[in-house]
């Protein structure tokens, strides 16, 4: 006659012990029962009679023992406690797993929990101050991130570092000067998004991912531009105080919308034109290739900056006032500085000239002026897209730093 306590479910552990995962089978059986539900556990591991009650005790389950005369493999009957359920009392989903129905303002308690995960109540209130969807989000962010991740390139193999070429010393010097300028600008372009990555609520993770890739892009740009600068020599060019002052005003901007505006819409937008110019006028295959590669990345940065500002401008009519003020503020801060390093300007002319005949220099000079005009036109177009009138866009574009970035 059986003397086993009644049970709802039976679990056969065979020879498996708790030290090697038997608790998983027990846990699985308990999970399907309400508190008070009963699981009969059978097994042959000699330590089971010690381990099973010890494990149950720590999890708030009760154990009932069979009659000592029971000769079966039945070890005990577990009566399910309520702690497992209580742990998930008040748990909530951290929003939807995927866009577009993201929370307009995710609570700080969601913190670093994966978006869409079931969050146990409690835990730290994580302070991510950029937590408004309208401030950071753009619907194009997931797609841009996917593109960005797919288009990462390996500086070692994507650039023909070993192609043979020899440049006249002054042309090589002009390349080195331009590369020096690019490195310090890319450095600023790395720092700006990096400072915001840690402030954006992880609920908007595609934006965080995109900015993280943007940071990685800039890191790669710094690497290839400095490698090109030192490809034939051992020294970099000059860095002007005014240029660094201009970059400093960019890095110091702590408002995400304004920083994106100054960096991506105005700065990197201008840089796309500059890199395009350099690709066309590059005197060697390495310079040509790295400028082309960097230009592809910078275009993506501009697209995101524009997208999230367009989104924000649509919901916040006061945004344009703040953007306008930011341009004026930066202009005022830089009014007594030279802006672009004269050595850089000259180097651009030399590269565009391609020779030292007066006609060559004149043509080169014209091309650099065309470049500046193209940058200005591009800025105006983007300002108009953000809702500025065309005459105001022209005036604001003219206030942009002479340092391009």
């Amino acid at each position: 006659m059986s003397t086993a306590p009644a049970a709802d479910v039976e679990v056969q552990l065979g020879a498996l012990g708790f030290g090697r995962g038997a608790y998983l089978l027990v846990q699985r059986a308990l999970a399907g029962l309400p508190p008070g539900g009963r699981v009969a556990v059978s097994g042959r591991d000699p330590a089971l009679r010690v381990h099973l009650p010890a494990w149950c005790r720590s999890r708030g389950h009760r154990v009932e023992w069979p009659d000592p005369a029971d000769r079966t493999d039945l070890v005990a009957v577990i009566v399910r406690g309520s702690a497992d359920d209580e742990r998930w009392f008040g748990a909530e989903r951290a929003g939807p797993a995927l866009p577009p129905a993201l929370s307009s303002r995710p609570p700080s308690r969601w913190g670093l929990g994966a978006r869409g995960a079931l969050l146990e109540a409690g835990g730290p209130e994580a302070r991510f101050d950029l937590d408004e969807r309208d401030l950071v989000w753009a619907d194009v962010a997931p797609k841009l991130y996917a593109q960005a991740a797919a288009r990462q390139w390996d500086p070692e193999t994507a650039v023909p570092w070993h192609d043979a070429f020899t440049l006249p010393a002054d042309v090589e010097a002009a390349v080195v000067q331009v590369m020096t300028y690019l490195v310090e600008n890319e450095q600023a372009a790395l720092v700006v998004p990096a400072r915001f990555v840690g402030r954006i609520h992880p609920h908007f993770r595609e934006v965080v991912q995109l900015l993280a890739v943007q940071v990685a892009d800039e890191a790669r740009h710094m690497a290839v531009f400095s490698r090109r600068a030192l490809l034939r020599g051992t020294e970099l060019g000059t860095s002007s105080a005014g240029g660094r002052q201009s970059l400093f005003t960019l890095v110091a901007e702590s408002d995400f919308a304004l920083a994106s505006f100054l960096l991506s819409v105005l700065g990197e937008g201008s840089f796309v034109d500059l890199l395009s110019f350099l690709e066309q006028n590059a005197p060697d295959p390495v310079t040509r290739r790295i400028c082309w590669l960097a230009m592809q990345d910078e275009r993506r940065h501009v697209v995101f900056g524009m997208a999230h500002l367009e989104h924000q401008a649509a919901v916040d009519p006061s945004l344009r006032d703040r953007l306008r003020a930011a341009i004026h503020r930066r202009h005022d801060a830089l009014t007594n500085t030279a802006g672009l390093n004269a050595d850089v300007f000259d180097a651009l002319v030399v590269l565009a000239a391609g020779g030292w005949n007066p006609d060559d220099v004149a043509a080169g000079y014209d091309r650099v002026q065309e470049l500046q005009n193209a940058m200005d036109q591009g800025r105006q177009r983007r300002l108009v897209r953000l809702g500025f009138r065309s005459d105001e866009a022209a005036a604001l574009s003219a206030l942009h730093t002479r340092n391009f970035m």
Partner: protein
Amino acid sequence: MPAPAVLMGAVAYDPKVVTIWEGFRAWLRGRGLDFDFVLYSHYERQVEDLVAGRIDAAWNSPLAWLRAERLAAATGGAVSALTMRDTDRDLTSVVVVRADSPVRRVEDLAGMTVAVGAVDSPQATLIPLGYLAAAGVEVGIRRFDVGVGLHGDHIGGERDAARALVAKEVDAACMIDANHLAFVQEGTLPSEGTRIVAQTAPYDHCNMTIREPASAGVKLFGELLRGMSYADPQVRPLLDLEGLTAWEEGRTIGYHALASAVDAVGFYAADGRVTAEDYQP
């Protein structure tokens, strides 16, 4: 009228004790109890201060409970167990040998060397040695005195005993049932590399000891502790740290084995004096 108050003692066997009781303090104060705690470096002074009336409650090891009971009785007073954790009830200790050991029954351990925890560990020293003595088995003892004065709260002595077993420095080792499982799961003991040759009868572990008669503050303290819910996200992390899912009524029926062991080795005198020779917390 001032709020009911309680000053509780706890032994700082681990830095987490501060986290636990600071968290509980905030929770208790939010429910009308003017609660605070003091930390002790060992249980003996905590028990003396409880009996002397310097603190209102003591979060006591089972050994500290026995001493509090004896000290109070010796001065005409009495103590009781206000609450205990659900995990303080019905524990057992085990005596473990290597899987290839010739030892089959507890009697086979006679004359062999058994590793135990600290001199004052109820679960890894006093209770299992009392069990062996009651079975008439005389053994050599190798003690691992880690955290003396903490009454075995520090797991180090038990773990060192387990390591000595694996290193073949001893023939057997004593530990609490849950630690045998933990040592196997963490790899201190090889999976299926050990065999349990003896298991003690169930006994109880810690309790919240108070002086009789209980003050209004102490009574409220007990009610509030027992009202803590594992569903409450404010206290659940603290309950996890303290190793319980619910506070139960205090009971004192599970300390006989330890009391016998204490008397057998002369750890405490009947009046609560510390009489163990080589015990210096």
